[in-house]
């Protein structure tokens, strides 16, 4: 309950901060929606040429984009530091969070909001609406799929960026991990062979963010639900464990005054 209160207070503060620069915020939101729309043109071109590939057509792809964009957007808007955690660690900015009686990882992640995330959320919902899978139970499955995606996005990127505790500057590694998970969550895993599918379900869990939730929205299956739930739980727990292990190695030159 204390954690929920903390989150609500942080989100309120973040939204107030965003509203302080409304024009910049709404510009980011609109630009992100345009950005996603332009990226989707690839699939319009692809399916214009190949019509359908292993059961995936343009409508399924709209759904895939909807699930992934909404999951990413929620992560970015409500837990914005999951993208820049490596910088926070390397620059010694964890000092601020360590000095307060709150869970360090949760506090750090939710202390930042990326305005463009709202654009992803709106695009995701819009893409879902226009995909043709908008039914009452489809909406419920969409919500479940998106929430699983949020957990896996955050868990995966926290794990990668926590390597900064051991390796030092991993900005480029983190950046590429981010772009890899984001890019490949936007591809249906049906296009790939068994080895690639395995990679996308494990070390780079993009299929657990995009393909599996999309298949779950298209048609309920216990297998998909189990895959999403176990993936979300495993990545979240592992990320907390690795972050805590790394925290024991954390060193800084005391940057409390900078963060305040």
């Amino acid at each position, binding site marked *: 309950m204390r954690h929920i209160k903390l989150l609500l207070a942080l989100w309120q503060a973040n939204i107030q901060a965003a509203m302080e620069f409304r024009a910049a915020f709404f510009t980011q939101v609109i630009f992100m929606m345009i950005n996603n729309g332009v990226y989707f043109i690839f699939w319009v071109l692809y399916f214009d040429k190949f019509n359908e590939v292993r059961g995936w057509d343009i409508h399924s792809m709209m759904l895939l984009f909807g699930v992934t964009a909404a999951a990413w957007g929620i992560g970015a808007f409500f837990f914005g530091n999951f993208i820049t955690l490596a910088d926070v660690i390397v620059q010694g900015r964890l000092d601020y969070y360590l000095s307060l009686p709150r869970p360090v990882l949760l506090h750090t992640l939710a202390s930042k909001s990326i305005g463009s995330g709202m654009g992803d959320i709106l695009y995701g919902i819009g893409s879902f609406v226009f995909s043709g899978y908008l039914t009452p139970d489809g909406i419920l499955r969409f919500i479940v799929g998106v929430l699983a995606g949020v957990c896996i996005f955050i868990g995966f990127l926290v794990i990668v960026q926590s390597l900064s505790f051991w390796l030092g500057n991993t900005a480029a*590694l983190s950046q590429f991990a981010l772009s890899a998970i984001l890019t490949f969550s936007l591809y249906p895993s049906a296009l790939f062979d068994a080895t690639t599918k395995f990679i996308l379900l494990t070390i780079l869990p993009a299929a657990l963010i995009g393909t599996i939730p999309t298949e779950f929205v298209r048609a309920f299956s216990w297998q998909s639900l189990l895959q999403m739930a176990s993936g979300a739980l495993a990545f979240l727990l592992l990320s907390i464990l690795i972050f805590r292990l790394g925290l024991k190695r954390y060193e800084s030159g005391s940057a409390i005054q900078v963060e305040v």
Partner: protein
Amino acid sequence: MKKYLSILSMQIINSLAYPGDFVGRSVSIATFIFIFAGLWGTTYTLAGTDTINGLTVHNMIWYFMMAETLELGRPRINRTISEQVKNGEVAYILNKPYNFILYHFSAGLGDGIVRMSLNLIVGSAVAWILAGAPPALMGWLMALVTMIGAWILHFCFMALIGLAAFVVEETNSFELIYQKFVFILGGFLIPLDMFPAWLQKIAYALPFPYMMYAPARLFVKPDMDLFWQMLTGQIIWVVVFVALLSFVYQRSERFLTINGG
């Protein structure tokens, strides 16, 4: 000229300073090529043909190797410029005895040379395993020549986006839009050969294919006519964007407000 070469070499040394990052980059390009090879391998198999719009699977995989080398090798100079404008650091750079834009060009090139070299080595190894022997020497030469124009055009775009921080607070959105235009109309995700004819015409009228498609396509299927067409297009767009960047930079200086020292 000497001072810019010093900045370039300094940046190369900086880029080599973090071996962990070095490994991370190699893994990234290997992963991307592997996945793209899976996507297009499946597509060709399902289509039941060896060639689609003049390109084979071999061409497609090496095309993506070159496209990824370029894309992953380009430092996001706009972010550095934008940060320097927003936090006021620009004031300390402007009074140094070098040109602000040329400084970033040299530093970005230094970083880019290291990144692209590494990408090329690792990417080629992966593509060779997945698709077989690399394209002919002529392809490498044409790609190398057109990479110069592609790099300058990319820098101009990045610098223009970075300088936009003088008038708008948030410039990341512009970068995302620019990147997506390169991804689609530049032929990064799908070669222009796969476009419908009407979209090819639109793409060719824009600068994006000259920043990505030109080196990647000439690399896998060297063609003298296409080479001259791409080179001419690059020269025209480089002149346009260098002039635009120069104009915007001069105008931007007027927006600079320095408080204190």
